[in-house]
């Protein structure tokens, strides 16, 4: 999968980025920009921390990319999906937790009826709420505020890039939208 971007602490404006990044613990994750039948995007509002993110998350032991994607999206967004395009991979080297995260990202369409999200305890504590926003508004919601926390800033860099890419894909091929 094409690497869209590699983010480091330098991209957060923190001057020092660790030189020993290849030794970081690896976390792989699957994420999706999901279009509903109304052509809205499903975003997760993290109420207690004042930001929005795209649904998705890390692989569990032994899972394939497809399994991780479908499970994470069903748990967080409560949606069954059909992938319509690959968006690309985003690499993050987070110095603080010494973590290398690779996110594999897709443009997908919701199929069938939505079900309730099945949030983890951590997500419930963070105040996760599922929202449906037009793509432009989703992009605004994800990129606008200047967040104070380290992890959310990485999510913001990544998810605003992913939504921008999804927007480009759709602009070039309007047939991707449901009619």
């Amino acid at each position, binding site marked *: 999968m094409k690497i869209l971007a590699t983010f480091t602490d330098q991209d957060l404006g923190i001057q020092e980025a660790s030189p020993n990044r290849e030794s970081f613990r690896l976390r792989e994750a699957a994420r999706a920009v999901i279009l509903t039948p109304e052509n809205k995007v499903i975003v997760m509002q993290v109420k207690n921390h004042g930001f929005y993110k795209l649904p998705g998350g890390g692989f569990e032991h032994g899972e394939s990319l497809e399994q991780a994607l479908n499970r994470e999206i069903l748990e967080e967004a409560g949606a069954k999906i059909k992938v319509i395009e690959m968006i690309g991979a985003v690499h993050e080297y987070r110095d603080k937790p010494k973590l290398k995260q690779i996110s594999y990202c897709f443009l997908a369409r919701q199929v069938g009826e939505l079900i309730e999200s099945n949030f983890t305890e951590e997500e419930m504590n963070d105040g996760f709420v599922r929202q449906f926003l037009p793509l432009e508004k989703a992009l605004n919601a994800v990129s606008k505020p200047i*967040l*104070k926390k380290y992890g959310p800033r990485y999510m913001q860099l990544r998810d605003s890039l992913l939504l921008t890419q999804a927007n480009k894909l759709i602009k070039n091929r309007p047939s991707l939208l449901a009619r």
Partner: protein
Amino acid sequence: MQKKALILVDLQNEFINKKSGYYLGDLKDLINRTNQLIELCRNQDYKIIFTQHVELNSEIEFKQGSSGVELISSLARHEDDVVIIKNKISPFYKTTLNKELKNISEIVIAGVLTNLCVRSLSQDAYDRDYEIKIIADCCQALDKKTHEFTLQDLKATREDIEIMDLKEFILQ
């Protein structure tokens, strides 16, 4: 005894760091004008005060101890200028600014961001009955529209606040 003060709001490295969410672009012109303002006020025996923002629970911008919180080095500062470190938008909250402004009746304000800390200082000082002049072209926000709207709204809601460019201030 000094009766007037010049307060320079949050002119810190964070705003000239290209990767920061608070990056304002090249501030050379703004700093040049601000230095002219500082020299002019210094010659007229104004008390010179710099505010410095430190965000206590931030892990990135304005983080305590980071280079981003330091004042921009090209400012015409003197050792005996006052520096007020603040943790909230208002420079009066849990700081010694009140004490520094004892006997002061007029405050001249410049700095960044127009709609955040400049506005907060202006309105909080207004409510403490100081005469206030804001030097518009020595202030900046993340975008021009916000800058202009903020000054327009301050003027519309607090008519005693004077808003002027550096040139007008020099000619006074």
